[in-house]
């Protein structure tokens, strides 16, 4: 086992994928000599060359559209979008072409493209650098949308996403990039399915469903709740499209309560979908409505007040208390 940060784990995963398959190429802004603004691709250009680690012009639609073209030629491009808020120029290419070509071609055209997006807030950034825009992509059929929350998942999920023949949006929690965890770099196969939820902590009173940067927050909340005598189950969704609803319903069958936690605004967000699906399936087992704790329905605020916008341990526990009060 090796202790790695999430950023280093993704780097190791990319390196392993590139060693295994010469068709894997990386495309993005500043990912070469600089190693990316978060250094996720550090040293890769030095080791794999400029053809495979490609510094692109500063045009996200261009990066995305040419990556699709490379995939049509038989490559497996991994695109880095520098920050969540910069993906919108590429939105058209992602939604109109990347997501739809397999369907449009009746399965003849496969697009094994990975779009890596550092996401979320909590780093004191200026505007457009702290967004959680996963619902846009999860709402688009043809895309798969996953989040890593820890170094081991980061290492494996990026490799699994690259191996997938479908386009995958891989969200990386940028404020957790430098948090460390154990990764077994000698393991030969992934410990779990790319699209399966993972029960990280078992509990009996309330289920916390979360993903990305909120996983650590929820685990901390569960530890704190234990002191108050509440047993919380924490599930890392990992994939929001497809959604592993069976793991969620199995948990709710046990606890009878669920709180969904994410940084994105709750209105029409992933939590709304989870709440609807869990309620449809577990109506008679629920002791309380499925509740949501997330961002407010405003543009992401200035960083001096972002801590009040983002769910934290106390807001998660307040959500748990609301659920238990029914």
């Amino acid at each position, binding site marked *: 086992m090796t202790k790695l940060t999430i950023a280093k784990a993704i780097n190791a995963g990319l390196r392993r994928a590139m060693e295994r398959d010469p068709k894997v*190429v990386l495309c993005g802004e500043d990912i070469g000599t600089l190693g990316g603004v978060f250094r996720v691709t550090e040293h890769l250009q030095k080791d794999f060359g400029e*053809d495979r680690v490609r510094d*692109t*012009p500063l*045009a996200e*639609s*261009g990066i*995305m*559209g*040419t*990556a*699709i*073209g*490379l*995939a*049509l*030629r*038989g*490559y497996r491009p991994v695109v880095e979008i520098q920050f969540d808020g910069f993906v919108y*120029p590429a939105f*058209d*290419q992602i939604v*109109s*072409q990347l997501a739809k*070509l*397999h*369907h*449009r*071609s*009746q*399965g*003849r*055209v*496969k697009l094994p493209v990975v779009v890596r997006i550092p996401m979320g807030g909590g780093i004191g950034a200026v505007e457009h650098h702290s967004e959680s825009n996963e619902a846009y992509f999860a709402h688009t*059929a*043809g895309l*798969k949308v996953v989040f890593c929350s820890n170094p081991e998942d980061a290492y494996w999920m990026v490799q699994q996403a690259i191996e*997938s*023949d*479908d386009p995958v949006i891989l969200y990386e929690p940028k404020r957790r990039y430098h948090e460390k965890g154990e990764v077994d770099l000698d393991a030969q196969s992934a410990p779990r399915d790319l*699209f399966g939820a993972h029960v990280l902590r078992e509990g009996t009173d309330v289920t916390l469903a979360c993903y990305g940067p909120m996983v650590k927050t929820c685990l901390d909340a569960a530890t704190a709740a234990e002191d108050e005598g509440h047993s919380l189950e924490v599930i890392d969704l990992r994939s929001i*499209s*497809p*959604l*592993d*609803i069976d793991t969620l319903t199995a948990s709710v069958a046990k606890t009878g309560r669920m709180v969904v936690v994410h940084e994105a605004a709750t209105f029409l967000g992933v939590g709304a979908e989870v709440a609807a699906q869990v309620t449809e399936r577990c109506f008679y087992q629920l002791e309380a409505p499925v509740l949501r704790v997330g961002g407010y329905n405003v543009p992401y605020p200035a960083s001096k007040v972002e801590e009040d916008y983002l769910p934290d341990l106390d807001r998660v526990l307040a959500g748990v208390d609301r659920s238990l009060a029914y």
Partner: protein
Amino acid sequence: MSSDSGVAVTPEVGDPFARVVPPPDPDRRPGGSYGSPEMIQILTPEGEFIEHPQYGRFLEDLTDDDLRGFYRDQVLIRRLDTEATALQRQGQLGLWASMLGQEAAQVGCGRAMRPQDYAFPGYREHGVAWCRGVDPLELVALFRGTNKGGWDPAEHNFHLFTIVIGNQVLLATGYAMGILLDGDVGTDDPERDTAVMAFFGDGATAQGDVNESFVFAAVHNAPIVFFCQNNQWAISEPNWRQTAIPLYKRASGFGFPGVQVDGNDVLATYAVTRAMLERARSGEGPAFIEAFTYRMGAHTTSDDPTKYRVSAEVEVWKHRDPIARLKVYLSRSGKADSAFFADVEAEADALAEKLRRETHAMPDPTPESMFDHAYSEPHAQVDRDRAEFRAYQEAFADVEGEQA
């Protein structure tokens, strides 16, 4: 800078604030001018062959069979296009985007491509599709709503039609970058060296994707030919709403050559495209071709061009017809006789009849097929939705069973 009379004059040398070109003149209408003085033309509208010092050599190895083939291609696709428009009017198609008037532009470049070259069309490239061997019935199936593109792109090296204006140009550029990575340029192996043709119209030149394509292709020196059919109209918007300078002049700003060719002249279009494709395949990078042509019909069958353009303009362009001039040339030069022309007409009628018959016989897809291929690998939500749809349908079957 303009003089008092409103006539544009050349900006003074050294004036950093002068416009490069005069502002658009709202009274300017397509149809007046016939391209720029630099436009490459080899076959005049009257069918006169003019030797071209630079591009003439790209026609040297054409046989009379090839020339008759250019004529046959154009007549057949015009007939297919007319038939498809009729099929739409008869309710067999939801929509049709006619290419009437653009036959030479598409046959000229389509026949300049080699089998290994790859084309990325918009949605009006029926003539290019024909040259790439795509069954016209597949084009009709798309506009009928039977599917969203039924041909195998890899079989024809002809990508699916792209409806979002300009999207395909970036895909084409990426594909060309992949050719570079594969080392399939500049090897001097005519079977191996490969280039890409990206198709788009004058309207698309305003799109970010198209301009980004120019940047990406230029900095990578990608083997791609940007083929813009300037048919003068982007639905109702004339050229001068899209661009302040002639389109082919934009290329130099991006760092590669731009050529304006008479898009109604199949020989000039063939020669220029072949030149630029050979250049790209040999590793010399991208080029931009503006094929100056005219959309004789409506934008699509849903459009009414009488709302925005005058019939006199269409009349002017009728005299520039691409097929008529080639027929005159072939007749006068003795390269084709009346029997040949009669045979082509008969073949066109038979082809149209076949298209009509097969369109009427085309089965609808099964409703459940909508769930196929949303993903290449399983997706739990699609599986759930498919199961729900199936259960809903089966509920009707039960009711019908009870009633029976």
